[in-house]
């Protein structure tokens, strides 16, 4: 098997607990992401999702383990890894357009001014920001528009890996929906590799190719890797009709509600990879296999 585009190997993070000991956030976390893949990571707060994100972004150093991208050891922040932060992190003294050109001219220093502006405007248009709005300051934009600018800035840089840290966490449900659609649109245009943190199960199913499930901290682990067997393009309205949708959703809910706590704190072997899970009701819809049906039963219990 070839090495994946991004491989996380034996990642461990410990903090001193203030009493001479150490608090282990996660230990020996290993997983891989393929090029062009959209991967979401789900888990309860405190399980270390954001820590993994910060390590991937190069903003934090792990206690142990390595991150390799394209076979190269990753250390420190880099333009190859773009980040969309939960709180937008736009520079408030720059207009929306300038916030994007700020990134683009850092990424492509050889480009002329006109080309930078053209490229930035195009990406702002992709997330639905055109006309007057792109010359406004972030404080004059709504939360949803700010996050659009932030997404445009990240995509316009065309990084090898795009990291999204709960990008829709602070948005209302309606805005969230529209921006998710826009994110999908931009992503399918660009073949970007995306790694995203989220709390929202439906969001993860809509967006991801694969969902990584984390157990509760401390000593959290990446326990499962659930493949989303719903064909693209996915439309919010239609995917709920797909036979796999509730099967997958129930599996995820069950994991988060129950098994994430049960599995928590269990020692992990150093070479353990997340257990691949594939739920596909369409393959043998006629057969009387009880196994895939269990998730539905679980949902009724929950």
């Amino acid at each position, binding site marked *: 098997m070839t090495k994946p585009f991004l491989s996380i190997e034996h990642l461990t993070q410990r903090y001193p607990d203030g009493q001479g000991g150490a608090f282990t956030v996660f230990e020996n976390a290993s997983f891989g992401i393929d090029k062009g893949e959209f991967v979401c990571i789900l888990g309860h707060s405190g399980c270390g999702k954001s820590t993994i994100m910060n390590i991937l972004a190069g903003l934090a150093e792990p206690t142990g383990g390595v991150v390799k991208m394209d076979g190269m050891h990753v250390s420190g*922040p880099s333009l190859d890894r773009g980040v969309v932060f939960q*709180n937008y992190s736009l520079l408030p003294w720059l207009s929306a357009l300038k916030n994007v050109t700020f990134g683009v001219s850092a990424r492509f220093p050889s480009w002329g001014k006109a080309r930078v502006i053209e490229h930035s405007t195009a990406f702002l248009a992709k997330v639905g920001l055109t006309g007057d709005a792109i010359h406004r300051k972030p404080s004059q934009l709504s939360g949803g528009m700010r996050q659009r600018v932030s997404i445009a800035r990240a995509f316009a840089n065309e990084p090898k890996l795009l990291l999204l840290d709960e990008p829709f966490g602070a948005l209302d449900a309606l805005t969230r929906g529209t921006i998710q659609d826009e994110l999908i649109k931009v992503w399918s245009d660009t073949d970007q590799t995306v790694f995203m943190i989220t709390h929202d199960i439906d969001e993860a199913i809509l967006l991801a190719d694969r969902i990584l499930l984390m157990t509760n901290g401390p000593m959290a682990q990446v326990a499962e890797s659930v493949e989303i067997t719903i064909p693209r393009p996915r439309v919010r309205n239609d995917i709920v009709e797909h036979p796999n949708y509730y099967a997958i959703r129930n599996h995820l809910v069950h994991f988060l509600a129950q098994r994430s706590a049960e599995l928590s704190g269990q020692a992990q072997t150093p070479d353990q990879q997340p257990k691949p899970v594939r739920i596909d009701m369409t393959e043998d819809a006629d057969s009387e296999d009880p196994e895939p049906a269990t998730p539905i039963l679980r949902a009724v219990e929950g």
Partner: protein
Amino acid sequence: MKTLSENRKAALLSILILIVSCLIWEASIPAQKAVGELTEYELLTGGGQPKAGVPPPSQVLAKAWEQLSNPFYDAGPNDKGIGIQIGYSIYRVLTGYLLAAAIAIPLGFLIGMSSVAYKALNPFIQVLRPISPLAWMPLALFVIQDSEMSAIFVIFICSIWPMLINTAFGVAGVREDWVNVARTHELSALKTAFTVILPAAAPTIVTGMRISIGIAWLVIVAAEMLVGGTGIGYYVWNEWNNLDLTSVIFSILMIGVVGMLLDSLFGLLQRTVAYTE
């Protein structure tokens, strides 16, 4: 009838207060006449000196008109136009102030970026800051041996602290997220300083600059009273020695007006660098 806007009402009220207080001032000062018969000497010198007293506003206005219609005349060391005197003061303030800014802002940047530098320099700042700038004057005169430079030094030492402290505070308070944006865009340290930290800290820095220029203008008057020679502070003191209270009141007003102009200049600068999160 249309109601006046709030600003117009306020302006009208201001003018009214000005006129009323001037009238009260004018009325409260008794007309001054030479009392009794004139002596032979007084007759020879052309009338008696009126008793010194606070002049009425009409006299101050007349003085202001006289001075402002020819602000730049120079009739010897003790008789220069108000424009020249203010010019000297502004020159001293700006020289000392710009020197202070040239040191305080870069140093404040360093202190703000490094908590070690902050902790190391903080005791010095805390001790030096509350010293009245005029207390430095004797030492400055002795070391520098030049009254002009000593006045500039006093301005320098009084305006450095608010700028230093505010710059350090502003730089240290730059949101981690914005620094992370710079880091994920692989900006060099210098580029981060100029494109992210400086604009982010600019409102705080400019506030410090505004406080400093205000203090510098307060201090220059006192400093010039001590060093003498030229400047608005010297002018006030000189007119006091001449017992020309009309000029004293006029120059007090001028100090206020120039101070207001300097402050509003920085107010403008503050508005251009302001941002809302």
